[in-house]
């Protein structure tokens, strides 16, 4: 299960001098089990803040985040997290990076490596099992980061602009692979992006946030069948509507 209920989530930061900065303003949101949701919004709208609150990495919020009936108060192994980049431990090779979480659970070594191998296969990097992150390309590193997050078998996967630093071709390829992984593993995925194209290609629903303070501006269901064709007219229409919404600063 991976059902997430967010109610009245508000987060503000007290600056050293100056007024209080409201990053998120009364966000309420439901994400269904096995759903793929993209959170889209201009930079500075609090997308990452929202994701970090869901992950339990930040505290000091008001409102509630409930995963499968349990309030989130700190990092939990039911939640996997993929950062934007540079999150692989450079001193561990690919296998040991993927096995890190299992090692923390004190799983025996052969079991750790068996599970790591399985996820390495899922992301198609079996031949790089013993490589160090510095020897991998940006796309491969993010594949490893996905495998590492999945290795603990979380119910929900949070992804913070994971393909943002990649070139367009690699990015498209990884989007396709991610959908395949999602279909195989059936996790709930919350994916942050500022690319409308990426959001329309990937998600079941797009949650558009307004500029600061971040509020839910509109929820756009994407009913196109997968695999989606980026050049189809329906795709283009959806993309244009959402772009218009963002460029009008969410005035509907």
């Amino acid at each position: 299960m991976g059902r997430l209920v967010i109610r009245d989530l508000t987060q503000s930061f007290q600056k050293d001098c100056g007024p209080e900065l409201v990053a998120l303003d009364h966000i309420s949101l439901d994400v269904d089990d096995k759903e793929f949701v993209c959170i889209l919004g201009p930079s500075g709208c609090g997308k990452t803040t929202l994701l970090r609150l869901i992950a339990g990495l930040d505290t000091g919020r008001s409102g509630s985040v409930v995963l499968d009936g349990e309030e989130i108060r700190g990092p939990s192994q039911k939640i996997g997290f993929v950062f934007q980049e540079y999150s692989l431990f450079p001193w561990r090779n690919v296998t040991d990076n993927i096995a890190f979480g299992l090692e923390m659970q004190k799983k025996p070594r052969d079991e750790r490596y068996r599970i790591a191998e399985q996820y390495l296969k899922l992301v198609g990097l079996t031949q790089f099992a013993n490589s160090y992150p510095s020897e991998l390309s940006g796309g491969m590193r993010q594949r490893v980061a996905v495998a590492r997050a999945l290795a603990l078998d979380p119910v929900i996967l949070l992804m913070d602009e994971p393909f943002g630093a990649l070139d367009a071709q690699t990015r498209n390829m990884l989007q396709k692979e991610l959908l395949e992984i999602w279909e195989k593993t059936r996790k709930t995925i919350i994916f942050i992006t500022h690319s409308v194209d990426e959001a329309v290609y990937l998600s079941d629903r797009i949650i558009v946030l307004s500029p600061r303070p971040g509020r839910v501006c509109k929820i756009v269901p994407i009913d196109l069948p997968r695999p989606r064709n980026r050049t189809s007219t329906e795709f283009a229409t959806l993309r244009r509507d959402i772009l218009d919404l963002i460029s009008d600063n969410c005035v509907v």
Partner: protein
Amino acid sequence: MRNSEEKKNNQWLGISALLLALVIWEIAAIVIVRNSFILPSPPDVFIAFVGLLEKGRLLLDFEVSMVHFVIGLGAALLVGIPVGIAMGWSHRFDAFLDPLIELLRPIPPLAWIPFVIIWFGLTAYSAGFVIFIGAIFPIIINTYSGFRGVPRIFVETGRMLGCTKSRDLIRHVAFPAALPSIAAGIRIATGVGWMCLVAAELFGVSNNGLGMALWFYYDLHQMDCVVVYMLLLGIIGLAFDMIFRYYMDRYFLRWQTGEVA
């Protein structure tokens, strides 16, 4: 291919500089100075080296110095790394210890000698303490800055993957991330500690030791033997550094290869 050839050529360049220095030294000693008290020539030094070796003194001096050095550096590692970790990890501990350390740090290790004699007497621990003072600060500072430089994303990744206790985060995330900096600190500390060795043995904590022997032969005006000990101190110091670097690079910092060079 070209790279390895170039490397070989560069090695020869280095060796030729050494040979050139030896030749200049020889000419200066034989032709210009002509006084083996002021400047012993390379053959004088070699003969003195063989003589000392035959006496069986060199090995004993080396052993005694190693005892002093191991006491000093060992204590510096045992104290310095945990203190550096605590200061790097906790802002409170940093605020607590930083003024004290910054006050003690500029005191030269040799300035401790009077109290060292009063506290430890003329024992190996006295020499060890002087070396300890010289070695501990680079270790503390590099460990500290290594920990401060650990990217936040590593710690957060660790937490998301079930590594939540401070002790586990230090052990599995922060320490390996800081290891290059810690290793650099230990290298500096080894160098400084080794330099303190001669002074630490100068006040007579033992009858042997590389530093002690150097002073002993100076008192006897056997300057060729003094040069033997000078060169030995240099070569042994260099060997420590090379061995340390080799092991660190090979077994602990292998992941760094290819990141910069």
